[in-house]
């Protein structure tokens, strides 16, 4: 019998070394602490925080979530504690955990985005930034930054100027051509791209004749969206040079490795953490086991290794 070699699971994401490619997705893992009883937080590659804004945000009225076939819709409305409370209430806990923390954030204007990037730049516990551009531009008629390449580039340029930390841009899938968006963000200085954010969906309560969500529409996530996410990751990975973080419906190690084949350097586990709070750790462990079984030394050899 051959001695079992432990495969190399490390990857480097825009300069951030990760012990394995498994990150947790923004908005699905709280600020880490919520999952401490279910996940060894030092077993995963990185944690991404709930999306942060300058001021605390209350979010939308309820109902905010609804299940759909193989997925869910959420209209949380970006409820978050705000950057002040993040620093005073959440960072101290994260300081004790030896796992990179990526701060996900957003703004209502380009200036707010830039200010957030500047503020986050000052927090030593923050290893990198993930800009959520799927937010309406309040100054320009509410068109979502993330669906217009020009606006997206402006946001990225402004954030880029405001931080020296690795800057990751999270792309919206609600676009005709995600490659155009990806290139605009890369050209504007993104160090990495993460995709996909949620698709826009809707659910109806037939008997009440009303939308289920108070917000009418919501963000669609979960296993149902995986085929779309995988397609977009593959398209973008072919078109850009910066590393890609694959997100969307990842429920297990096989899903995660498929995203890596499609071109992702790392992946994020979102909705799966709701169904199984230990999902991120389990996925990292199962990925390693899969590599052992398939006699692969280094997870990095899978990145973009899809044969087409």
């Amino acid at each position, binding site marked *: 019998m051959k001695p079992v070699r432990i495969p190399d699971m490390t990857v480097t994401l825009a300069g951030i070394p990760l012990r394995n490619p498994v990150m947790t997705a923004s908005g699905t893992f709280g600020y880490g602490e*919520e999952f401490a009883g*279910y996940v060894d937080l030092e077993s995963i590659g990185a944690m991404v925080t709930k999306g942060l804004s300058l001021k605390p*945000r*209350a979010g939308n009225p309820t109902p905010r979530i609804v299940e759909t076939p193989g*997925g869910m819709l959420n209209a949380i409305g970006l409820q978050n504690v705000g950057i002040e409370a993040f620093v005073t209430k959440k960072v101290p806990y994260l300081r004790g955990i030896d796992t990179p923390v990526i701060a996900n954030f957003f703004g209502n204007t380009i200036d707010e985005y830039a200010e957030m990037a500047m503020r986050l730049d000052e927090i030593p516990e923050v290893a990198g930034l993930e800009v959520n551009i799927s937010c309406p531009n309040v100054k320009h008629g509410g068109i979502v930054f993330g669906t217009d390449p020009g606006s997206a580039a402006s946001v990225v340029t402004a954030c880029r100027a405001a931080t020296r930390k690795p800057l990751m841009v999270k792309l919206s899938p609600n676009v005709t051509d995600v490659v155009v968006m990806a290139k605009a963000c890369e050209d504007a200085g993104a160090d990495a791209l993460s995709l996909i954010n949620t698709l826009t969906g809707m659910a109806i309560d037939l008997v009440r004749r009303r939308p289920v969500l108070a917000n009418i529409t919501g963000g669609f996530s979960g296993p149902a969206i995986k085929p779309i996410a995988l397609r977009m990751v593959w398209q973008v990975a072919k078109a850009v040079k910066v590393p890609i973080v694959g997100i969307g419906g990842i429920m297990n190690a096989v899903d995660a490795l498929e995203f890596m084949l499609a071109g992702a350097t790392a992946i994020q586990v979102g909705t799966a953490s709701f169904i199984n709070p230990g999902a991120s750790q389990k996925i990292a462990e199962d990925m390693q086991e899969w590599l052992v079984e398939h006699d692969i030394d280094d997870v990095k050899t899978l990145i973009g290794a899809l044969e087409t």
Partner: protein
Amino acid sequence: MQFTSLIISNIEVSPGYWRMRMTAPQDFASAEPGQFVMVRVTGAIDPLLRRPFGIFDVGTYLPAQSGAVAQPYLEMLYRVVGKGTALLSTLHETDLLDLLGPLGKGFDLGTPGEEKLIVGGGVGLAPLYLLAKELVKNSKVRLFAGGRTRDDILCITEFERLGVECYTATEDGSLGECGLVTEALWRRLDQLQGGASVYACGPHGMLNAVAGIAAARGIPCQVSLEGYMACGVGACLGCVAPGHSHSQETPDFRCVCTEGPVFDAGELKWRD
């Protein structure tokens, strides 16, 4: 805590209402009344999300075989309303379920000796049985159980066995008084001498009424809320309920899964 549970029994106790007993880890014996579990009803993705259920009872079960080890169990009382509960009702003894729990903040047991008034609407009784079991140790307990028809009045015998005095009311008069159970509650409060506190679980309209009654009488009232939940651990922010001072301008949302499901009625915002 996440654990796999083996179903011991799953029986229909009233049309559309089921009671399931399943194995639980040792620590479950100390679950607080009012806490809940999140149940994954299938290993497949449909239904995808876990379903929240109150803890109806916990205990220890001694299998009939000689020498068998005492097995801690938990019970749920659930109503079949949709896909997930329909699936649950098809499960049998020895089937396995994946659970998270005990989750959330349970009921405060209040001042020993003072009278305890428990109000339950339909399957809202579920988390109140374990509560009553605790309360009867130190206090006089009365249960006010309401429902649409007699089929919605559940497990009264079990409460009576604890020594709880039970009042029932149905909207169609098919069991107990005809009308809302809150009327019986009013009457009891009128007769009340000394301190008391109120515990309620049921439809939001009923909780609203009970909170109003308790506030009018100036007695403490705890309510157990429901909310659409994805995670059960405070991460998704799906389950929130408006707190007392909530308004569009000064938002104040509470997390039902971690700050609740049990709240002091005064902490919450109620319709007038």
